[in-house]
């Protein structure tokens, strides 16, 4: 393991207000390191997505500290957090979130366009990223012309094209069959081999466990431990097993 890209130190996050207030994270400590693929596992409502949002600088913690590349985000402000996301963090979403009116290469180019990269080099880099995910032959296809697996690969290309230090993936295989899910995880695992990058995958899909360098379990807003079973309560294991056995 090399340096830490993102660290959460005693992170607490309340969601909602008044009677509807929910303590989504209750003093979370975790980190994502370079050259690693980390899995964050937990049942629905355990706080996975909230933690991902906080680590991804989309939500600010109610208490505690988040550090990106060693610097606290506490004083960053909304503009500073946007810049951190733009420069250092790539996102992959369960439902891809591609722009339906843009082609594959334009979707990837978009991540560079928001960084202010000029059109020509941006297109060249976008095409390169599509080669990395094995989709060079579909660069002019629109999302509706691509399969789910192909759309997710475009989303991964969009996440890596800006040289993000960390890729945060939310259930990247959640909408895919096992073959496509395997292919996507292979790509993410290859990205994580880059010693300057780390990948954090939020999932409750146990089929992707073999791709992980580290597995972190979260439940009720608390990190239970690391390892395939570490810290996982019996009830959580049963929920995970049921979720993975359910219809896909």
């Amino acid at each position, binding site marked *: 393991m090399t340096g830490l890209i993102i660290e959460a130190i005693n992170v607490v996050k309340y969601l909602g207000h008044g009677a509807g207030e929910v303590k989504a994270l209750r003093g979370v400590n975790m980190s994502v390191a370079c050259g690693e693929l980390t899995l964050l596992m937990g049942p629905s409502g355990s706080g996975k*997505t909230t933690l*991902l*949002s906080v680590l*991804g600088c*989309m*939500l600010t913690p109610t208490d505690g500290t988040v550090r990106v590349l060693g610097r606290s985000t506490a004083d960053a402000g909304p*503009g500073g957090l*946007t*810049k*951190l*996301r*733009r*420069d250092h*963090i*790539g*996102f992959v*979403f369960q*439902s891809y*979130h591609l*722009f*339906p*009116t*843009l082609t594959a290469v*334009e979707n990837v*180019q*978009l*991540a560079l*366009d*928001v*960084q202010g990269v000029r*059109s020509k080099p941006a297109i060249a880099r976008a095409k390169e990223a599509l080669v990395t995910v094995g989709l060079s032959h579909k660069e002019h296809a629109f999302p509706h012309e691509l399969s789910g697996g192909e759309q997710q690969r475009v989303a991964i290309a*969009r996440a890596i094209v800006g040289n993000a230090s960390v890729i945060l993936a*939310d259930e990247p295989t959640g909408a895919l069959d096992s073959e496509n899910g395997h292919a996507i995880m292979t790509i993410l695992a290859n990205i994580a081999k880059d010693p300057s990058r780390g990948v954090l995958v939020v999932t409750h899909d146990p089929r992707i466990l073999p791709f992980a360098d580290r597995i972190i379990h979260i439940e009720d807003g608390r990190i239970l431990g690391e390892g395939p079973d570490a810290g996982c309560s019996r009830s959580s294991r049963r929920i995970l097993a049921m979720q993975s056995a359910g219809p896909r």
Partner: protein
Amino acid sequence: MSLIFRLASRNLLQDRLRFVATVIGIVFSIVLVTVQAGLFLSFERMVTTIIDHTSADLWIVPLGTKCFEDPSVLDEHYRTRALSVQGVTDAIPIVIGFTVWAVPSGGTTPVFIIGSSTSSEDLRPWNVVQGNLDDLSTPDGVAIDRTYFGRLGVTRISDTTEIRGIRARVVAITNGIRSFTTTPYVFTSLDRAKAYIGSSPNRISYFLVHISSTTDIVRVRTQLLANLPKVEVLTPDEFRSRSRAFWLFGTGAGAALFAGALLGAVVGTVIVAQTLYSSTKDHLNEFATLRAIGSSGVYIHKVIICQALLSAVIGFLLVACTGLVIVKATANTALPIIMTPVVTLGLFFLTVLMCVASSIAAIVQVTCIDPARVFKQ
């Protein structure tokens, strides 16, 4: 082509029906504004058309005259007093007034008489298409515009009728001398005009003052005011402004045109705002994704404003075509709609302003967007 432009244009065209509704909204709105502005311009020009066709350096008008058509009177002997002022080369008397024209086929219609000395070259009818202006000095001679043939019941030279019971004979026909009051102008000699409107022989409406080129106009005006009681001495520009102010704002006609134009702009803004807002709402996940991947607020605002500008440009192109058709179609009517390059440019900027203003609601919506929503979808 920039990616922002591609994203904006494709977002806009993705829902063709909504895009068509947007463009129709812009077209209806701006065409309404165009018609109102065109009418305003036309009105503004027609209000001063007689003043525009004189070459006087100064106008002597009765005190408190509101406009050219204001039927006040001056004593005829003022002419002698005016001519006594150093530098004044001529003071041409003009008589105006409303009266009644007997339509040969029966009935009467109001007309507006303009009488001036037939020996003077000032305030003579222009755009003469038939007859001869010199014949205005012949007995009963009058000049009318062919626009009003139907109203006046005459159609050619030598047709005769009566004005206030006094015989009148058409000796000249003009084209395009239209009155904004829709009351036809009838040009005739000074004395006949007095008879037609029934004014006293020594009563005059205005004097058109000509001065020598070396004379100081301010000094002449001061001396005229000192010599003539209860008059105002106006430059043509001042008289034009006064006439416009009276007809456009004093009568409420201009306010009505402004109100129509404003209503058009407001309706257009609301329609465009509504369609842009709903388009933005439909693409909210995409804007949230942009926020999530680190796009600045400005970048997203550019996408929305680009959509608004595209709508404006496409809408305006259609407005311009429609406007040309309207201008051509009304060219020979009593109140033609006028378009000038400046007004066209102004309408373009109004369209752009309207569309950009319309995007404010959409911008507010995306500004408040939570990027974390992408995880929930």
